[in-house]
């Protein structure tokens, strides 16, 4: 699914991540790592938010650095701590994403209903709690027809009921739509409801399969 080749990411010439050669197959993947290990940087790179060196290919042959539009069409991203301009409403953002990612109307409606977000989405983001912002970011992450959805720390700030809904949605998207997931969390959080294809560890400035 995702192939890394001579990949490296640095800030101010300080290397954060280096992946010489690695392929992540399709499926449901758990990316584990301690605070500051580089999980969010990896996700931001894969989401197209940060520049990098080397090659990342979305199989079969989409080179992410060259195919900038396809890259963003096929990889969706739900941020760990989403922040949106205070004056926008959740609906403004959903409309933009639905239009840009060519999502059918029914999908948006289903997602807002699933996350029980219709009550607050027409209000400005400035009135949202962190849980509401997280729900909004999850709705945006599931919008469209992606091949991969990156969920950075999806469990934080969500209540138990929403977490269960999210698990259900992940399984549905994976089993019925063939979407792969990369889900990050700290090492001490378990997600027993999700049948992970593989677990990966971000440590020592690289990404390796967990034993």
């Amino acid at each position, binding site marked *: 699914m995702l192939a890394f080749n001579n990949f490296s990411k640095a800030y101010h010439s300080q290397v954060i991540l280096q992946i010489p050669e690695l392929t992540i197959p399709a499926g449901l993947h758990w990316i584990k790592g301690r605070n500051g290990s580089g999980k969010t940087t990896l996700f931001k790179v894969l989401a197209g938010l940060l520049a990098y060196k080397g090659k990342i290919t979305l199989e079969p042959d989409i080179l992410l650095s060259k195919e900038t539009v396809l*890259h963003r069409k096929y990889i969706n991203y739900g941020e760990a701590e989403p922040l949106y301009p205070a004056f926008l409403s959740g609906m403004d*953002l959903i409309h933009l994403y639905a239009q840009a990612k060519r999502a059918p109307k029914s999908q948006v409606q289903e997602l807002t209903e699933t996350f029980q977000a219709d009550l607050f989405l027409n209000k400005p983001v400035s009135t949202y709690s962190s849980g509401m912002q997280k729900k909004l970011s999850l709705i945006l992450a599931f919008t469209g027809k992606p091949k991969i959805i990156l969920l950075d720390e999806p469990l934080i700030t969500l209540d138990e009921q929403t977490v269960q809904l999210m698990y259900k949605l992940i399984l549905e998207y994976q089993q019925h739509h063939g979407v792969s997931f990369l889900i990050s969390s700290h090492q001490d959080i378990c997600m027993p409801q999700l049948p992970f294809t593989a677990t990966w560890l971000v440590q020592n400035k690289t990404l390796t399969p967990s034993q």
Partner: protein
Amino acid sequence: MSALPDILQKVVVKLFYRQNAGFFLAVFIFAFGLQSPPSLLVSPMFLSDAVGSPVFIVVDLLLFFLYYLKCFNFTNKTLNAPENSFLQVAALLPPQLLLYNLARVHILLYFPALVYTLLMVGYAIGQMNYLAGVLIILYNIILTSFSATFFYRKLSGTKKDPKSNFFLRFGFIPAFNTVYFWWLRYLLGQEKVMLFLTKLFSGSILLAFLYIYPYPAYDLRPALIGFWTAVVSHVMLIQRVQLFQEKDLTFLRNLPYNYFRRFGHQAVFYGFCLIPELILLLRYLPITTTFLFIGQLFALGISFMLLMHALLYRQKQSLRNYARIVFFIFMVFLLFFLTSPPLYLITVILSVSAFGIFSKRYYAFEPELDID
């Protein structure tokens, strides 16, 4: 020793000067670039005459009051920002220490205006015009005291509900909900004073050129130079728009838009921004004979703003360097315009350069690294 001055310096003062490099460049050009001799506004002859004129003193203090509003608004906004809510702890410090530090912040922000007004005081005293001197000193004391007291009360009290801002609810106009106008809503909601001052400055410059050198008594070059100067004065606004885009709208990078579309969003917004200047041109130039010229000016303005926006995507660029580039482009084209060049050609050159830089730099740019 208190840590408060250091923190206020980093949180408010440094940020103010970093974010307003474009503004100071525009003021510098206006104050020293368009005068003959360049040092006219600070020359002893000018100041000696000026402090004897009540009209000049009032106009001068009004202009500085606009700058004061800018400083005040910036401090207010910065202290209201969620990431600075830790500053509420400063209310536990002795009141005189907090008041002193807040007054210090005001003085550091207001410093350029303060220096000029003190220069005026010096000349007023030299000419034994004590009343003018005392009034200017009182003016500065009142502004400083008001700022210090206001922000002291702000840090000691509880924060206002952000919903009380009218512009946060500006989305009731459907067109303003589209991404093309998010920048405008941001400016109207969070950068009102900067937007107002920029448009006031830009409009005044353009109006002055159109009024002093009316067409057809003069040819169209003064209108061109006035419009060019007005557009260049938007450089700080462009900086703020780009910062907003790369700080608060980072999620836009995850949307499957090609470069043309992203570039188009900016073009629409900057075109919208220049509508007041367009109205002034239409009002003061005979539309039947200058329609094509006005259209070309409008396109030229948008292409310049797009280029300035694209230049902000150069990695590791200091704002000082950016200001130099803006000044260079401004001066080169100012001289070039005196030769009545074909405007459509300059528009094409600026637009193509802007698109080239933007498409080459956009995805390589990382805002986190763009810190002085």
